[in-house]
């Protein structure tokens, strides 16, 4: 079974530029998550999709971050314009169904490491 795919793996941009990350979840997984992991911290959920609908985006800085999952499969996360504090690893994860309480596990991709100069 193929895992969660993310691209690019690394990105260096200057502040005020825009950047986009792509994620392809495990086939058949209905739920997709984007996390931000700043150096020295644990991952923080930015947005959660169930199919192509948003379930939770309470911690997404909506003035500069946007995400979409138009066909309920792959997803893009965009930052425009980027700030220095956006330097982090952006992780995508997927799970087969809503609710980890039933035993669903989130499967993580390798992440995209972003450096904003």
């Amino acid at each position: 079974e193929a895992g969660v795919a993310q691209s690019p793996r690394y990105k260096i941009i200057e502040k005020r530029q825009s950047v986009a990350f792509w994620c392809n979840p495990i086939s058949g997984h209905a739920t997709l998550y984007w996390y931000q992991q700043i150096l020295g911290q644990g991952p923080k959920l930015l947005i959660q999709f169930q199919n192509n609908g948003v379930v939770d985006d309470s911690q997404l800085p909506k003035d500069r971050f946007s995400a979409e999952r138009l066909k309920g499969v792959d997803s893009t996360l965009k930052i425009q314009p980027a700030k220095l504090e956006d330097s982090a690893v952006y992780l995508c994860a997927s799970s087969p169904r809503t609710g980890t309480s039933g035993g669903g596990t989130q499967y993580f991709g390798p992440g995209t490491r972003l450096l904003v100069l």
Partner: protein
Amino acid sequence: AQSVSQHNHHVILSEAASLELGCNYSYGGTVNLFWYVQYPGQHLQLLLKYFSGDPLVKGIKGFEAEFIKSKFSFNLRKPSVQWSDTAEYFCAVTTPYNTDKLIFGTGTRLQVFP
């Protein structure tokens, strides 16, 4: 807001030593608890999880964790570590507000020397 605390930021052990990593959470209601591990150069992956039942949970690679509700703790243990256990370990919790939303601790870096 719910939070997870991992007080051991960096742990250094010799092979065969015993391991215990602390994890405390702040939510007073029903929680689901997880330990994730990230080996060098690899993805985050699930080590073990607790939803209900026996508070002593066994995971992969000989790891176990004990849920102590009165202490709001979910400590990770392994009786004898190996060099291959060198990794970063994250404790996480979900709450009934959103049973999908993993709230992670800051992680503990474990280094095991031969």
